[in-house]
């Protein structure tokens, strides 16, 4: 009985366990050792092509920042529309699956653009951001967002929402909005730190 119950939620349990481990790691002394271990990587990032371009040409850095913002806007629009539909607030007269599938496709494309432009920006200021707690909080939130979206939310909704408990669907939508809002807000706060 217990095993069959756990088996039904193995992906959610595995993802939650992984996030719990990441949180435990973030608030333990292990983090300090890991920090020292990744410092050479961040030093290398600053000397890479991305790092050199980002540090040398302020204009290039600014344009990539703007591309990052545009990608954030598009991915945020996809998140708002798909979760708004799940909550019954937007496009109520359209099939849920149509909205979810099409918005997810654009979400993935914009997320890839945001990650590539984000890596470029990180390279330009790598030895600064490694010391910023808010940067690591953003990375933790981003990991949670990606894991939640691809291992919990999408598989959960893949076969339609008709057979799901409406409160589970609403909880998934609220969790998705919360985690991606945290990613965007902490990203903005990196600019004010350090």
């Amino acid at each position: 009985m217990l095993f069959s119950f756990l088996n039904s939620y193995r992906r959610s349990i595995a993802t939650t366990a992984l996030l719990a481990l990441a949180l435990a790691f973030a608030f333990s002394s292990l983090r300090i050792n890991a920090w020292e271990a990744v410092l050479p990587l961040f030093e290398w990032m600053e000397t890479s092509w991305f790092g050199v371009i980002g540090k040398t040409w302020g204009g290039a850095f600014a344009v990539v920042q703007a591309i990052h913002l545009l990608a954030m806007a598009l991915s945020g629009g996809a998140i708002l529309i798909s979760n708004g539909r799940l909550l019954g607030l937007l496009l109520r007269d359209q099939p849920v699956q149509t909205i979810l599938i099409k918005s997810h496709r654009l979400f993935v494309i914009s997320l890839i653009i945001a990650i590539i432009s984000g890596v470029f920006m990180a390279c330009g200021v790598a030895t600064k951001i490694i010391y910023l707690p808010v940067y690591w909080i953003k990375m933790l939130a981003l990991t949670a967002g990606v894991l939640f979206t691809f291992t919990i939310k999408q598989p959960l909704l893949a076969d339609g929402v008709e057979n799901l408990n409406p409160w589970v669907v609403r909880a998934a939508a609220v969790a998705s909005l919360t985690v991606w809002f945290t990613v965007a807000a902490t990203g903005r706060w990196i600019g004010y730190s350090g």
Partner: protein
Amino acid sequence: MLNQLIYDFALWLDASRWSTLLHESYYMYNWVETAHVLSLVPSLGILFFIDLRMLGVAFPEVPATTIARHLRLPMFIGFGLMIITGLLLFYAIPVRSSQSVWFRLKFLLLIGAGINALVFHYRMQQSVGSWNTAPVAPANIRAGALLSLLFWSLIVICGRLIAYDWYDCVRQQSGLINLFAGCIDGQSQF
């Protein structure tokens, strides 16, 4: 003449107590700026989906009027938040902002985007009955959607560039930059 008027108006705003308080408050200023940036999501994020629907990229099977009607309210809320926080950011740093070439370019682009939105809305109202369920809108509507994407992308780029001081009046600039930025001879505040 116009630049002098803008400069005097900016000085008048700058002299107000609330402008200084907002500028000097680390947390308040950053919260307003964060709200301005995050308002991109409900405003531009949704506008992009409406534009992409017209281009046949997003939700081609959903009628164009359905997309526009249902997404209008959250989009306008987003734009409302963006305008309020944008005005507050200008109010916090009026002199430098009004003399930023990027701010001035952004302002011109905003006017362009506004006119394009009005023309787009008018054309859509006139013709939507004949193509509402078609996956791709007619050429003139697609052109409006493409222009909208272009205008807003440039607006975001200019908004981002305002933070950089390459063309500020406080630095030595060419005559053309001085003219476009509206630098005033002998001005004492930046």
